[in-house]
């Protein structure tokens, strides 16, 4: 059996580990357009922050490919997939045959049309190790940075570079920062915290026009800058699969075995469309844990095993300047709220189930909440008041605890 994987991040690693659970001998080829050993993309901001090193960014140990008998092809770009011939074509003209293919191409920064952007000499996105290194080279203590986008990527970038530069200004069309993971009140709390650490925000605003060193905003404000970081959002990389005739609906369409509409082709990670069980909707969940679990599921199935992944939910653990946020699920239904000095807790309940939560500051044992969402545990089975107050196993029945802690079946 010959397995080919396009991509080299969490989904690819999950796939390799999934395949090797079932098939220890089949050949695995990993094709990556980057030149690096598999690394953790979210760590690029920690690299700039000085909290990790390039060597410590490895997502798996240096002997990972060797140990798993993987042929690693770095710095090669796939130009086409031929599903009939079961081949992928590379930019150097080579053709590689597969029996089973994983499409794990990830996502790319989305850069909207903005007037005058072409005049900005120092403009970057913030997604890959190369993009982080390129940005880092332009920064010194006099640099003024304008970040377009107050989402996870834009703000992690802001945190990563704040200590190196003169000032960081963030512009976003949305009225709140981190609008994909926080509600209004939580966003206001985090914004204040970030402002206390020297970030400046223009929200409900956008860049109307760039000159080479100044952005004029829709509100009329003028923001002088030396460097622009574009972090408006990401889009799944679906083109290759679509050109090969595979079904795409914003993301690659897959079933719960991670199979695409094309024979012997699976997909996983940021390029795919997931089913979010917390909102019962299909959506793009570009999250590293999701990518790994999809990849592992795909790998097991590619190797002839049986696995499904049908518990995807949005979830994020992220910190800024020492203040941690953990969120999961969807923010629908009745809200149960507790707000303190630099702590924030909101749980969302609907249909007798926990659907989502937001925690800031006190994130102790948050996974108990995540599990209630993921397992769709009826709240009538537990002491909800107790678990809301303090997540713990005390809120569960004695029988459930005997299973969890006593190994009872």
């Amino acid at each position, binding site marked *: 059996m010959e397995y080919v994987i396009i991509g080299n991040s969490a989904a690819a690693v999950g796939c390799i580990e999934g395949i090797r659970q079932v098939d220890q001998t089949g050949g695995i080829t990993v094709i990556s357009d980057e030149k690096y050993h598999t690394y953790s993309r979210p760590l690029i901001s920690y690299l700039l922050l000085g909290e990790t090193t390039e060597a410590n960014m490895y997502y798996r140990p240096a002997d990972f490919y060797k140990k798993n008998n993987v042929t690693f092809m770095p710095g090669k770009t796939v130009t086409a997939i031929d599903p009939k011939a079961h081949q992928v074509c590379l930019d150097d003209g080579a053709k590689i045959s597969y029996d089973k293919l994983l499409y794990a191409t990830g996502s790319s920064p989305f850069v909207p049309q903005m007037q005058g952007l072409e005049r900005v000499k120092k403009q970057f996105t913030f997604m890959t190790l190369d993009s982080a290194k390129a940005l880092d080279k332009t920064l010194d203590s006099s640099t003024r940075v304008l970040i377009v986008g107050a989402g996870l990527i834009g703000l992690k970038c802001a945190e990563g570079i704040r200590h190196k530069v003169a000032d960081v200004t963030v512009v976003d069309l949305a009225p709140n920062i981190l609008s994909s993971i926080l509600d209004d009140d939580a966003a206001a709390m985090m914004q204040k915290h970030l402002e206390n650490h020297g970030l400046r925000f223009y929200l409900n605003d956008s860049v109307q026009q760039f000159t080479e060193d100044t952005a004029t905003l829709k509100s009329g404000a003028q923001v002088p800058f030396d460097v622009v970081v574009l972090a408006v959002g990401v889009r799944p990389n679906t083109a290759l699969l679509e050109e090969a005739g595979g079904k795409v609906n914003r993301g690659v369409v897959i079933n719960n075995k991670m199979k695409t509409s094309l024979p012997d082709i699976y997909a996983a990670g940021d390029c795919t469309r997931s089913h979010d069980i917390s909102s019962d909707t299909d959506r793009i969940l570009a999250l590293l844990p999701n990518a790994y*679990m999809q990849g592992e599921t795909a790998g097991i199935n590619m190797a002839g095993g049986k696995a499904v992944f049908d518990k995807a939910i949005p979830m994020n653990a992220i910190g800024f300047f020492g203040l941690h946020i953990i969120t999961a699920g969807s923010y629908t239904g009745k809200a149960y709220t507790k707000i303190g000095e630099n702590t924030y807790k909101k749980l969302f309940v609907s249909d007798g189930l926990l659907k989502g939560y937001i925690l800031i500051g006190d994130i102790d044992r948050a*996974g108990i909440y995540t599990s209630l969402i993921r397992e769709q545990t009826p709240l009538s089975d537990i002491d909800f008041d107790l678990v809301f107050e303090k997540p713990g196993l005390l809120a569960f029945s004695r029988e459930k605890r005997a299973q969890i802690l006593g190994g009872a079946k």
Partner: protein
Amino acid sequence: MKRVYVNEKWCLGCHLCEYNCAFAQTGKEDMALALKGKQIHPNIRVEDGDNIHFAVNCRHCDEPLCVKSCITGALSRDENGVITIDKEHCIHCYTCILSCPYGAIVPSEEGAIQKCELCIKTTQGTPRCVAGCPNNAIVFEER
């Protein structure tokens, strides 16, 4: 594999397992000297309710969500099934705390996360929490 299992009805709520865990982490000979006047940071924690007490530590899951979710690769499962943390590699994003269904992973004082590793890096053999339990409320065995 051998794991730490809880006999809930036998737990006295004495919290000695927490002290023994913290002691094992110090690598010192004398418990009183090692822990006197110190705030302890155990990897096993007793929950107390009305006449209910039980200890919770890592379950060393066969399908460990913490390991699968770890964004750095700092958490891994060794050949014996023990889930361990490479603290050098951890950047304390707390995705594992988001993921663990039992709340068995906690931030550590030095930043990285900490969790029960069944004493494989410290005293070895029977985990110190179990060895010191006065009423067999936690046991180390295959089930």
